[in-house]
């Protein structure tokens, strides 16, 4: 699936939830499905600093594609991270670098991209794009 298809799929799923509780229970569940970062990569240099919850992110390079693993100490953040990883993992650096990430807004979680939320989601997206650009440059060499 393309990044766009993955996002549209998530948007479809979330459109089924009328109650905030259902939405958040799904986010929490997605957190449990997050491909967990290997303990040896859970180091400070892979820490994406948000003000309140911590997120660790690691990128693996395989057959021209990037695969992400991650973790967070907050359950809801972990769910959000899981969604981002689900959307972007297994894509080429070029596709990731060019990706327009619109699903967060579309499923009514835009406040998670605001500076006040400080859960590192914005910094995480930036970091993923930075990985993509770095591998893109590497490929060209």
């Amino acid at each position, binding site marked *: 699936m393309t990044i766009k298809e993955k996002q549209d799929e998530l948007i479809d799923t979330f459109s089924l939830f009328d109650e905030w509780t259902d939405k958040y229970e799904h986010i929490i569940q997605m957190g449990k499905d997050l491909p967990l970062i290997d303990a040896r990569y859970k180091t400070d240099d892979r820490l994406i600093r948000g003000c*309140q919850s911590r997120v660790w992110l690691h990128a693996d390079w395989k057959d021209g594609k990037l695969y992400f693993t991650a973790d967070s100490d*907050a*359950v*809801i*953040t972990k769910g959000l991270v899981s969604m981002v990883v689900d959307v972007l993992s297994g894509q080429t650096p070029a596709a990731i670098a060019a990706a327009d990430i619109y699903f967060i807004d579309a499923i009514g979680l835009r406040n998670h991209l605001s500076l006040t939320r400080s859960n590192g989601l914005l910094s995480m997206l930036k970091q993923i794009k930075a990985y993509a650009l770095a591998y893109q440059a590497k490929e060209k060499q």
Partner: protein
Amino acid sequence: MTGSDLHTALSPLDIEKIRLDFPILQTRVHGKPLVYFDNAATTQKPIEVIACLDKYYTEYNSNVHRGVHYLSQRATEAYELSRKKLAAYIHASHDHELIFTKGTTNAINLVSNSFGRAFLTAGDEVMISAMEHHSNIVPWQLICEEKGASLKVVPINDKGELDMEAFDQLLTPKVKIVAITYVSNSLGTVNPISTIVQKAHAFGIPVLVDGAQAVQHMPINVQVLDIDFLAFSAHKMYGPTGIGVLYGKEKWLNQMPPFEGGGDMIKTVTFSKTTFNELPFKFEAGTPDISGAIALGAAVDYINGIGIENIAQAEEQLVGYAYERLAAIDGLRFIGEAAHRAGAISFLVKDIHPYDMGELLDQQGIAVRTGHHCTQPLMDLFGIPGTVRASFAFYNTMAEVDQLVAGIEKAAKMLA
């Protein structure tokens, strides 16, 4: 409602009337009625304060202390009347002992810079406590580093109370100033300021009190307490943001050099020498937040109309009720269990991250603060990344506390 309605403590009916004075309390969040328990971050504003800002800009906006014209005189009178109201509110001896600042942080920076330049030298010490807000830590670190002085930190016990034995040991003639909070913003602890001042004064050491979490909760008499400096913010006492107060005893303020240079703080300026204006203007460089200062006066009027003693009593009941109800929640533990407390209650539930709890409470229309509350060293002491903090004002109700408790239980269930 006005003070004449209130001769005794606030009844639930009074609180319902008071709530109508705060338009924002009618707001709905995510389709639910707002339950605002983030009062330690900022309080909401009564209509009188909002109307005061509007009236200033509509009817008499003008610069102060400058013009001879009608509007300028009217603005100046209102600005100075506000200073008088604040002086009376904290029982200062003189109006000119009150300096308008941008807020508590700015007031503490004024003292750390100005007092520090005049009185700190290498080898001296500044005493603070382990429960200070970053705004009463960092300004002192900066000046200590500049002067070669050092910071001494009074530890706390596991209940979140000051260790007064350690205080006695650390208090030596090397200490040039004690800077301490009256009420902890993250633990709710009320510190024994009177005792602290007496002990410090025995060595001739002045005391700066961070009153940001105190002035809105209890009556304060700077003369009775004999406080040398008191810093506080308007926006935490029902006034607007961007304005606050430094109270300083005349004898100290007169010995301190200006903090910032500019207009209004000078007497005469030539390129070779400038002489400075007298108090309070020496410390108020540039055009101040005129509307903010006047609206702060309106906030003081509002508080006086209800009576700070009535507010203190109502809040004591409310915080006591909240403490009792929260204590009954399965797996909840308090961070900070001081015997004497006000304003805020910090807690954690099981191993739930404060951010997760805050997020799910928000979805239920309940506003709390989560995180380290700008007291990182304190969180480190407790070995936690942060807490969930519910902080109260007299306009909050017992029914809202019940909603908070139900909200926490619901969130805990979802996160289990």
